[in-house]
């Protein structure tokens, strides 16, 4: 018998997507009764002749992997790659359609901090409630109560209803309870994406301490730095399948190679906000060539958007926000930032936005694209519509580990001595 903490074999999860021109989110009892009645009389079609089409969608398919006890595994992949579905299956929130999961030891999953918190209850009451929700026993919570309160820094407000807490206090308390769980297997989803920078650091520190305590952790994040510093293994998911399973550095480079630097990205699967206009494709060119390798600051970038609108757009706008892996917006470019506004559009068009890449720290940056019209409003917004990888600038080599945070822009500096 091999030694594992988590063993997943040919796991799959299928969702049924119902396409119907009309109808709300919930099935109504009447619909079901009507369907049943129609089935009974052998008449399948609805009255206006349209037929409900049901499409199968595999959020995960044929996923197999094994995690050894004490390993910290980062799960990375684009939005919609199946990360959340995998976590939901592992934490038993939904049932798999195919395959098998074996978990050894007590499992705690943290898909959200503060689940079960009630705004009317005090901090003290919520600690007990949330602890129970996360599967802690009352005696355990009692034992760790002091630690939890210390970590959250809320001792003065313990008997205040949490609805009067600031959002920072709320998050701290919620994370504190979760951080003091002592399961053998911990499943964590993006909890670090919240709170201020200082608190994020504290959470990361706590996670690091937990992982060194020999616990098995599955960690999903978009924060590549966090994955790099916490994890010992990585799983890269792509369209519901495992693309890579192995070391972190290899995983991160697979992720960025696939997700990061694509010269052409298409968006036919995205749903625009307005049915009459959409972005079809983005092409990224650096110094006149399609992008292939990490970009040096100073490169001229051109973002060519192929888009169309059935209606005439009098004052269209196209913007691109450049965001780092921590979710911080570094800068933005777009048609409103040029010498003159974009001309009215109708039908198909290709709009190119060009700019010079500023001196920013090396790493992956995602492009958040927005397509608007002054009168119509938002036409389409695509987060992580594409990404660029910024290469290291030569002089950074001078900087060794232990130097301060690089910040968001690089400023070359010299020195004198007197």
């Amino acid at each position, binding site marked *: 018998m091999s030694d594992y903490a988590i063993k997943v074999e040919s796991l799959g999860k299928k969702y049924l997507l119902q396409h119907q021109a009309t109808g709300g989110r919930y099935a109504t*009892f009447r619909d079901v009764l009507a369907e049943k009645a129609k089935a009974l009389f052998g008449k399948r079609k609805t009255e206006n002749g349209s037929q409900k089409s049901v499409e199968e969608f595999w959020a995960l398919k044929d996923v197999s992997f094994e995690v050894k006890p004490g390993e910290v595994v980062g799960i990375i992949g684009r939005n919609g790659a199946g990360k959340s579905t995998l976590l939901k299956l592992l934490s*038993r929130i939904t*049932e798999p359609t195919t395959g098998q999961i*074996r978990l050894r030891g007590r499992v705690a999953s943290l*898909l959200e901090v503060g*689940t079960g918190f009630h705004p*009317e209850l005090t901090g003290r009451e919520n600690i007990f409630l949330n602890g*129970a929700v*996360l599967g802690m026993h009352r005696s355990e919570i009692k034992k760790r109560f002091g630690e939890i309160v210390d970590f959250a820094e809320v001792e003065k407000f313990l008997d205040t209803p949490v609805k009067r807490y600031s959002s920072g206090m709320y998050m701290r308390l919620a994370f504190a309870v979760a951080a003091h769980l002592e399961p053998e297997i911990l499943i964590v989803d993006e909890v670090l994406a919240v709170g201020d920078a200082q608190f994020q650091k504290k959470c990361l520190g706590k996670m690091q301490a937990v992982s060194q305590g020999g616990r098995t952790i599955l960690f999903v994040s978009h924060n590549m730095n966090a994955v790099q510093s916490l994890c010992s293994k990585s799983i890269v998911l792509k369209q519901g399948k495992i693309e890579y399973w192995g070391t972190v550095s290899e995983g991160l480079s697979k992720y960025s190679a696939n997700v990061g630097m694509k010269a052409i990205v298409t968006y036919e699967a995205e749903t625009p906000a307005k049915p009459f206009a959409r972005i079809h494709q983005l092409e990224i060119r650096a110094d006149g060539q399609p992008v292939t390798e990490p970009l040096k600051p100073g490169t001229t970038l051109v973002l060519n958007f192929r888009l169309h609108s059935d209606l005439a757009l009098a004052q269209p706008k196209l913007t691109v926000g450049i965001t780092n892996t921590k979710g911080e917006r570094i800068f933005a470019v777009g048609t409103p930032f040029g010498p003159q506004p974009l001309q009215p559009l109708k039908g198909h068009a290709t709009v190119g936005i060009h700019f010079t890449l500023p001196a920013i720290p090396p790493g992956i940056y995602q492009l958040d694209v927005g397509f608007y019209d002054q009168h119509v409003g938002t036409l389409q917004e695509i987060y992580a519509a594409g990404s660029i990888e910024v290469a290291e600038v030569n002089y950074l080599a001078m900087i060794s580990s232990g130097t301060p945070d690089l910040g968001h822009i690089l400023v070359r500096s010299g020195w004198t001595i007197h």
Partner: protein
Amino acid sequence: MLNELVIEAGKTERHYWADLWRYRELFFFLSWRDILVRYKQTVIGVLWAVLRPVLTMVVFTVVFGKLAKMPSEGLPYPVFVYAAMLPWQFFSSALAEASNSLISNANMISKIYFPRLVIPASAVIVCFVDFLISAVILVGLLAWYHVTPNARLFMLPLFTLLAFLASFGISLWLAALNVKYRDFRYLIPFIVQFGLYASPVGFGNAVVRAKCAELTNGDLLYRLYSLNPMVGVIDGFRWALGSNVPFDIVSLFTSLAVTALLLFSGVKYFRATEKAFADII
């Protein structure tokens, strides 16, 4: 050796009852939370639990007792109505609360695993606490009207249990159905309102039976009527408090059978659908 958990398609129920037992603390905390929160930020607080049945009792006493001059089976009319009001109020509020319980805890259901049965169960428990509080008024009424119950009173906990199980059984059905078909959100207030008249709350069951006896096929009609499990419960409550109407054993057994059926099928339906709750809620 650590215990191993196997998750497979269609096989999640193997540890179901053991899991339910492991999550008893969550059940306790959820009930405790709902009890704590129930009367937060109200001025008269827990008095609401008492006020509603008392006011309804006063109205029914005036309408059915004073105006319609209905017979009260040898009990003072207020005691007679309150004895029925108590289980009915519990039943109807349990239905209303439990059927919405899963939806109001949708966030927990989509983020955390636990046996979903805990949620409607704790909703029913919260209503049961209200029931116990308003039962104090019954004691007061008995003292005020100098009604001294006899040994039959010891049967009262059994009828309470029957009321509890009937409420829980229907609640499971409604809670699970409400997740998928939001129609039930509109149907339940109607069931509760209608049920107040379909159950012998304001009047005695003997009146209904006498009227039925006058009709052709009246007996069948009466048996259909007593399929409502609250008919047996309310009859039992009044009997235990000393009403002079002979005990209707058939009606009790009908209630027992219906309750058992509701409970059994409710648990079965709930368990069959709960795996999909997180996907459709």
